[in-house]
């Protein structure tokens, strides 16, 4: 290695500039905080939070610490992001494929959907779903049961909760089924490479994932019953559902608006991906005797995915970051719980905002790493 000052100089200057800028801001903040008698420190994280949160995935109430409140917010952010990403992807793929449909109605419907939802600011859509659409829902006492057990009301969606017996055995049976499927897939691939035989892998997989858990019910002693929500009267005109599982309307509105909005962008990525594969590829694949299913699975999709994945990653990141708009409709995400209530109660603005920023950064980077790994896996492997 032979370093030259000419190459090193600009790098060095950049590093020094970055250090100086950060140093200046830190120094400035320190001076100002000292002047105003504000103490810096993360000690507050272990203090009792003394505020409650509407909706939490882990056990939490005001007697827990601020750190626990942070975890509650973080998990709620992850929850809405994961559900949002799943729905947006499914919807995005369907709409994206529909836009290429030769059927005039389907094609136009998809096009209008994309143009409509893509061009309205997300915050407005969140307000629309929360304040306009969900508000049109009935009060708990007026709600009609859906399939006899679901209740969609202004106070949320109430669904029956599962009551398991011997849940462990059921869980192990699913794990066993998944392992069996993986083994069979590897075997099938080997069989095709060595002998050219094709096994109906898909059918076998479906069979396994149903049959093994079914056995756990029949002979493993697993049983499942449901707890159906019951209407409970609070006051003359005040009702609520008791028992079962309740999904707050804030979660529903946020997930709905985030996925409907992001799906439009994913749909465009999918369309671009499929259109980006040359027509000749399809014709060539057909000419060597592949059936249409195989053409899609073996020729079109692997190439399309290479175009689809990188921009879709961006959309996943956007969705995760956009979930911070939750604060507007009282969904207790990281921003509302931690950078909102906790910040106000402690007054530790710099500490809390920095923790929140690093958390979003870590979330985004994790998604990026995952998607880059996937992208690399499906990229052209030069041999």
């Amino acid at each position, binding site marked *: 290695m032979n370093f030259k000052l000419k190459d090193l100089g600009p790098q060095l200057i950049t590093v020094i500039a970055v250090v100086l800028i950060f140093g200046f801001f830190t120094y400035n903040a320190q001076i100002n905080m000292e002047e105003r008698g504000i103490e810096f420190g993360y000690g507050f994280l272990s203090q009792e939070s003394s505020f409650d949160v509407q909706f939490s995935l882990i056990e939490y109430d005001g007697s827990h610490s601020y750190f626990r409140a942070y975890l509650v917010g973080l998990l709620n952010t992850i929850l809405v992001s994961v559900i949002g990403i799943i729905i947006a992807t499914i919807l995005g793929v369907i709409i994206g494929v529909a836009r290429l449909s030769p059927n005039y109605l389907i094609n136009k419907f998809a096009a209008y959907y994309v143009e409509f939802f893509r061009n309205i600011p997300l915050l407005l859509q969140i307000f629309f779903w929360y304040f306009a659409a969900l508000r049109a829902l009935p009060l708990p006492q007026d709600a009609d049961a859906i399939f006899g057990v679901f209740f969609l009301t202004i106070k949320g969606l109430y669904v029956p909760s599962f009551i398991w017996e011997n849940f462990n055995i059921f869980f192990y049976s699913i794990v066993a089924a998944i392992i069996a499927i993986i083994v069979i897939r590897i075997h099938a691939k080997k069989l095709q490479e060595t002998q050219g035989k094709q096994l109906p892998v898909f059918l076998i997989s479906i069979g396994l994932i149903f049959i093994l858990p079914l056995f756990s019910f029949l002979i493993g002693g697993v049983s499942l019953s449901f707890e159906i929500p019951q209407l409970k009267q609070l*006051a003359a005109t005040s009702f609520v559902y008791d028992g079962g599982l309740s999904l707050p309307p804030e979660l529903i509105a946020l997930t709905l608006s985030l996925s409907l909005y992001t799906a439009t962008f994913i749909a465009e990525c999918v369309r671009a991906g499929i259109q980006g594969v040359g027509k000749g590829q399809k014709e060539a694949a057909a000419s060597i005797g592949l059936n249409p299913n195989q053409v899609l699975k073996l020729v079109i999709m692997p190439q399309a995915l290479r175009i689809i994945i990188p921009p879709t990653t961006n959309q996943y990141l956007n969705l995760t970051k956009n979930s911070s708009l939750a604060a*507007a409709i*009282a969904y207790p995400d990281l921003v509302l719980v931690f950078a909102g209530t906790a910040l106000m109660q402690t007054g530790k603005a710099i500490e809390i905002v920095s923790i929140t920023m690093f958390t979003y950064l870590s979330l985004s980077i994790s998604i990026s790493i995952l998607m880059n790994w996937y992208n690399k896996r499906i990229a052209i492997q030069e041999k």
Partner: protein
Amino acid sequence: MFKYLKQLTSLVAMVAVLFTFTTESMAAKKSKTLKNTQKKGFVRCGVSQGLPGFSNADAAGNWTGVDVDVCRAVAAAVLGDANKVKFTPLSAKERFTALTSGEIDILSRNTTWTLSRDADIGLTFVGVNFYDGQGFMVRKSSGITSVNQFKNGISACTNIGTTTELNMRDFFNSKGISYEPVAFEKADEVVAAYDSGRCDTYTTDKSGLAAQRTKMSNPDEHIVLPETISKEPLGPVVRQGDSVWEDIVRWSLNAMIEAEEYGITSANADSMKTSENPAIKRLVGAEGELGAAFGLDNEWSLRIIKQVGNYGESYKRNIADTGILPDRGPNQLWTKGGILYVPPAR
């Protein structure tokens, strides 16, 4: 030559010090905020995003309310014109950061005075301009007339970043009731959510409930329950570390209250100069040198009374006449059965 240099410098320094003493009062020199305010020509005041009676902007952008009047009083005292105020609407969440970061100089936004806020986060509370307490609002049709009728599973709408969230938890815990807190960032969204039936009850300071009730689609369908579950002394806040500015804001508020006590109003302030009572004469600047202590002229309090009015006038104009809380309750002078009692201006 160098022998005299030292003496010469000290002489120059002394002259300079004397010069600053004569041109600028001691207080103005000590108070960075006062100096900056006088230089800018307006008072930077943080208010709410719209709470009728306290701080609310009309369609033309004119701010009114008892919280607004505190800032106007300071502007009248410091700059001579009650209209020289720049109002910054802030959410509950933003308010303290805006003050500590120096974006505003007075926070007059129905803010509860608590120990941790006063001691912890670089703020100083200067007084109380409204004694309040947290209450609950419910729909009349629910038949609930007391908080003792609340049952497990009740959902309560409120704002984030306020003492309300903490009081609510204390209250429901002490009653052993499980509840669903639904906390929004902005008051308008809380009202919209409660109004549409998302929540069974809406909880915040009682003055706030009374004010927000006027915004509901049908105010008569809602009642505020009689119980008060907390003490909420609301008052203006300043940054820690500028005691002169702190004194100016404190005494601008006190002057309004004391003016009411002595019956000085915006209409009769000038004629009060010839009063027999020395306390009155001091308040209208006809006697003593009260303003000098914080670097203002002697008519600072006279300007407050003439331009903004006394506390009673401000209350009547903003809260009573608008139908929010016609009864002054605890916010009555101590001489008339309330708890408004301020140290004497002398």
